[in-house]
């Protein structure tokens, strides 16, 4: 097992809801509500969950695009929340992000060479002739033709734009890349190309990935570790082969069973959950999943289950299992 590259402890992020102009802040959206998470060097951690469960917020906290309200994030043993000035700038080179929507994450008024070269320029890594050489090299690495560097984003297809985003993320030779739904806005045949590129880059540069996605097939294919989130909490954290074989938490189980199978004869034994995901503004008491859980017992309503280790090495937050 590889050593930890990132270790998050007790992370919380609440967004205040302003109710009217004069009123005081009365409520919070508890996007991330007490999360411990380990990302190991050279491995891929898949983070899954439904919309609004806080997976993107968690990614942004690790990147320090946002400051948490509580908790800490250790990156190579340093607490990144304490970093300032030059140290923080250095950290920015180590962690990069690939966004979901390749249409809105590239500046439409800038040429591709400027977009890919910008991080190098900002961090003073290269300029002039050397900068151009680096940009050409990066474009080749992600499968774009160097002469395309004089074009603008609108002249590229979705898949190519995602390649541009990846080239930009790679420019500073980061150690960790956070990919937030990297392929979900692309067509199926293009998704596979981008997934392969991400995997190639990982083995070539020894990268570590946090891949955030709601696509359970994708996560199964790429991940070494999987974390399942529900309403701001991690409910299960396990090795990929263990969790896909037999998820322990009833939510993970229902989530995995809900994914349609490609075999028409294997009409899945779906566990249908009742109702919708509750609002993160007023999450249910005790275990947040108890309102939809088929296995709930009285204690689930009162007490929040801690994430605890099970016989198979997984961490699970459930009273019943």
């Amino acid at each position, binding site marked *: 097992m590889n050593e930890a590259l990132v270790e998050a402890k007790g992370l919380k992020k609440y967004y205040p809801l302003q109710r009217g102009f004069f009123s005081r802040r009365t409520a919070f959206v508890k996007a991330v509500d007490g999360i411990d998470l380990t990302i190991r060097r050279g491995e891929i951690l898949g983070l899954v969950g439904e919309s609004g469960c806080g997976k993107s917020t968690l990614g942004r906290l690790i990147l320090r695009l946002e400051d948490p309200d509580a908790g800490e994030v250790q990156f190579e043993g340093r607490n990144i929340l304490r970093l300032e000035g030059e140290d923080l700038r250095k950290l920015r080179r180590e962690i990069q992000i690939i966004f979901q929507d390749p249409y809105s994450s590239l500046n439409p008024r800038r040429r591709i060479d400027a977009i890919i070269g910008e991080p190098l320029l900002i961090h003073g890594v290269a300029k002039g002739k050397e900068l151009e050489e680096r940009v050409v090299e990066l474009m080749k690495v992600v499968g774009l033709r160097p002469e395309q560097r004089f074009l603008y984003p609108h002249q590229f297809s979705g898949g190519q734009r995602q390649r541009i985003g990846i080239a930009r993320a790679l420019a500073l030779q980061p150690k960790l890349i956070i990919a937030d739904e990297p392929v979900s806005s692309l*067509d199926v045949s293009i998704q596979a190309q981008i997934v392969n590129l991400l995997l190639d880059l990982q083995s070539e540069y020894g990268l570590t990935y946090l891949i955030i996605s*709601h696509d359970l097939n994708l996560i199964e*294919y790429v991940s070494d570790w999987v974390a399942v989130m529900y309403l701001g909490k991690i409910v299960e954290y396990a090795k990929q082969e263990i969790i896909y074989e037999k998820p322990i938490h009833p939510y993970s189980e229902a989530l995995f069973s809900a994914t349609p199978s490609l075999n028409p004869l294997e009409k899945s034994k779906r566990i249908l959950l009742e109702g919708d995901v509750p609002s993160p503004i007023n999450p249910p008491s005790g275990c947040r999943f108890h309102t939809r859980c088929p296995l709930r017992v009285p204690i689930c309503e009162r007490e929040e289950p801690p994430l605890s280790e099970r016989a198979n090495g997984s961490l699970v937050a459930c009273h019943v299992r």
Partner: protein
Amino acid sequence: MRNTLLEIKNLKTYFFTRKGVVKAVDGVDLRIQEGETVGLVGESGCGKTVTALSIMRLIPEPMGRIVEGSILFDGLDLAQATETQMQKIRGNRISMVFQEPMTSLNPVFKVGFQIAEAIKLHQGGSNKEAWERAIEMLRMVGIPSPESRVNDYPHQMSGGMRQRVMIAMALSCHPRLMIADEPTTALDVTIQAQILELIQRLKEQVGSSILLITHNLGVVAEVAQHVGVMYAGHIVEYGDVITLFRNPKHPYTIGLFQSIPQKRRTKKRDRLQTIPGTVPDLLGLPIGCKFQDRCTQVFKKCREEPPQLIEIESDHQVRCWLYE
């Protein structure tokens, strides 16, 4: 063999733009039998939605137009039908559920009013009767306490609930055919599972046929009996869902299946199979087979002549020169 409910023959719907003629649908043949679900799959821009809008005659004219072909529904050719005839069919005998449940409901009316409106228009009756029917429909699609929910505005409901309302509205007049265009794409997987289950159950209850448009092959496997795979404006493979999923023949279909991650890669260096290139620009399609530039098995004939849809085994057709 069941009766044919809808038969599309050589449908061509073109858009006349300033840059040229976009052949969004270019020779689609499709048959839907009574009581069955047909899945139509393909990537963005392949013409699946335009096919659906052609059936409903909702193509924005004069930019777009059905230029050729017929859509036979219950003895009437919808491609030739007048607007008055279509108004009697739309929402009544053929109804449609759209992808985005937020934008397809009117935000300023109560959901009950929107369902009742369709019922009154097509089936008559008093306001009160229509309102009662609306409550009944909401109950049928599994909305809890429908008596009070009927007074909700769309923004007071979650995405899954809104999609249920859309389905309630679509089924309120017991249509013969329901067209569902990406009905679960905007929803989370656990909610998607609920909606698919609901569509299945209601199909049996109401006895409608369903044309399900999606890019998700898993959804098709789950609910459809027949499946058509579209590429660049026409169907490249069509068949019974079990046969086609077990034994896909067209290089594009094969490529689609291979590019979906299924099991974990066993070795670190395992990669997904991909289809090279991108979906072609509909303004400049090549002569011959439209898939030629991305096909790994392309040969001379593919570049010269467009292949026809041919039957390679019972209930399984492919448009590819490899099987000629």
